[in-house]
C-alpha cells in the first residue's frame, strides 16, 4: 500500500488534503462521476420493459434485430447507438418514417408495440412514439403506470440479474451495429454466460465488463447514456404522473 500522508490509524489508503480524507478512487486524474440511475436508466428503460415481459431469448433476438435493422435502414455511420433511447430523438422525421415503413407487417414491430405501449402512453416526448403512429392501442392508465413502475424498479439496482441482461444487451447491440469496437488485446468474456450460467464466475466477469464499459461510454456524454435531455424529462414526467407512496 502507498505510504499514508496522514497520522490517523484508520483510512490509511486515503490522502489528506486540508481537512478532507480523499479515497483512492477519487485521487485518479480525470475521474468523472456519472449517475446510472439519473442518466442511463431512462435510456435503457425500454429494454427493461421487454426483458420483464418476454423470455430472454426472444428479448435479445428482437432487440438486437431491431437495432441492426435500424442501422441498415438508416445506413449512416455517424448515427449514435440506438440502444440508448434518447438517441432516437436525434433522428430526423424522414429517418423515423423510413424505419416504420420497413418494419411494417414485421412481427418485430408487433412485439415492440405490445411491450412498449404503456411507456408510449405515459411518457411525454417518448423517443419511440413514432412506432405508434396510427396504431390504435388500448391500455388502462393505472395498469400502464404499474408496468412502468416495474420497468424502473427492476433497473434501479444495476447489479441485479435483470439489469445485467439489459446492460449486456445494450453493449452487445452496440458492438453488433458497429458502435463499439474491442481492441485485439482485450480479453472479451462470453456474454452468453449471463443467460446460460448466471451464477458462474464468467457471468460475474461479463457483468463487471459491461458495467465498466457502459460507465466509460457514459463519461463521454449524452450519446452513450450520459447526461441528456430525455433522461431529465423522463424523471420529471414520472415524478409528476405519480404520487408519493
Amino acid at each position, binding site marked *: 500500500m502507498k505510504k499514508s500522508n496522514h497520522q490517523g490509524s484508520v483510512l490509511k489508503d486515503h490522502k489528506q488534503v486540508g481537512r478532507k480524507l480523499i479515497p483512492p478512487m477519487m485521487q485518479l486524474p480525470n475521474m468523472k462521476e456519472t449517475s446510472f440511475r439519473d442518466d442511463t436508466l431512462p435510456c435503457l428503460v425500454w429494454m427493461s420493459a421487454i426483458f420483464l415481459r418476454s423470455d430472454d431469448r426472444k428479448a435479445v433476438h428482437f432487440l438486437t434485430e431491431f437495432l441492426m435493422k435500424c442501422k441498415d435502414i438508416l445506413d449512416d455511420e455517424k448515427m449514435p447507438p440506438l440502444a440508448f433511447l434518447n438517441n432516437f430523438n436525434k433522428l430526423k422525421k424522414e429517418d423515423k418514417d423510413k424505419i416504420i415503413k420497413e418494419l411494417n407487417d414485421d412481427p418485430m414491430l408487433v412485439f415492440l408495440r405490445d411491450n412498449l405501449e404503456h411507456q408510449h402512453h405515459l411518457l411525454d416526448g417518448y423517443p419511440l412514439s413514432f412506432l405508434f403512429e396510427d396504431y390504435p392501442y388500448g391500455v388502462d392508465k393505472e395498469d400502464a403506470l404499474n408496468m*412502468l*413502475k416495474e420497468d*424502473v424498479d427492476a433497473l434501479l439496482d444495476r447489479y441485479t440479474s435483470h439489469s445485467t441482461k439489459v446492460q449486456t444487451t445494450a453493449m452487445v447491440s452496440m458492438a453488433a451495429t458497429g458502435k463499439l469496437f474491442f481492441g485485439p488485446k482485450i480479453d472479451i468474456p462470453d456474454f452468453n454466460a449471463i443467460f446460460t450460467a448466471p451464477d458462474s464466475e464468467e457471468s460475474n466477469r461479463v457483468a463487471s465488463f459491461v458495467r465498466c464499459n457502459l460507465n466509460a461510454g457514459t463519461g463521454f456524454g449524452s450519446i452513450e447514456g450520459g447526461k441528456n435531455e430525455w433522461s431529465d424529462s423522463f424523471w420529471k414526467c*414520472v*415524478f409528476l*404522473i*405519480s*404520487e*408519493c*407512496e
Partner: protein
Amino acid sequence: MEDKKDPVSQLIEDYEDFLTSSFNELWSLVDIEYDKLEAYSVIGGMLSRQVTLSIQMVRSPNMLNGHSAPLFLRSMTDLHIALAWIMLDLEKRSTKYIMHGLGEEKLSIEHFKKGIEDDPDNPNNEQIEQLIEAKSAWINAQRRDLFVEVDLGNWSQLDSRKMSQEAGCESLYKYAYKPFSVAAHNMWPHISLYNCKTCTNPLHKYHLLPELLEVPPDFDYLYRSCKYVHKAYVLFIDKFDLEYKSLLPLEWWDEYFTEEEAGNDSDDETTKET
C-alpha cells in the same frame, strides 16, 4: 394491602434514590483544599451535572429512545471527557474552564446591549435589560468584567478528540461521543433514519419523505447514562484515592436487575407450588 408499583415506576424511584445517596456519599469523601476552591467547585459541579442528567433521564422514560436520549448522552460523554481532562491538571484547567465561561457570558451581554441599541422600541427591551443585569452580576461576583477576556475558540484550546486522547478516554470519544453527536447536531445519518421514510414509488427513485416516526423506548440508553455516572465516580475515586464503600453505579445496576430476575424466578416457583 400495599399497592405494588409497576417495575418502571419502581426503577425510577430506586435509581434516583441510589444516585442521590451515592452522590452525597462520594462528595462527602472529597477533601476540599482551601487554596483550590474554584477547582473543586468546577469538578463538583460537573459531577452533579452528570448525576442530574441521569436522574432526568430515568424520570422521563418516554425519552429513552433514539430521538431524545442521544441528546443527553452526548452531553454526558462531552462532560466526561472535559472532567477527565481537567482532573489531569486540576487548578490550571479548571481556571481555564471558568474564565472561558465568563468570557462567553460577557460576549453574550454585549450582543444583548447591541440588540437594544439597534431596536430601542422593542417591547422586550425591559426584560432584556434585566437579563443583562443578572448576567453582569453573575460575572462580577467572580471577576470584574473589566478583566474578563473573551476567547472565541474552544475553552481548552483543544478539540474533544485531543482532550480524550490526553485523558485516556479516546474510545469513549470514538464509540459514544461521536455517534451521539450525530443526533445532537442533527446530522444526516440521524435525520435520514429517524425523521424520514422511504417513498416506495420507484418512479420517485425511492426518495426520502419527512415522517414523524415513533421509535420504541430502549432502556439501554439509561444503562449507558448509568455507565457515564459510574465513570465519573471512578475518576473521583482514583484521583483522590477515596474510600468509597457503597456500590458503584454499574454494580448497583447489575445487582438491581439480578435481584429482579431472581425475584421473578422465585415468583414463578411460588406460582408453580400453589
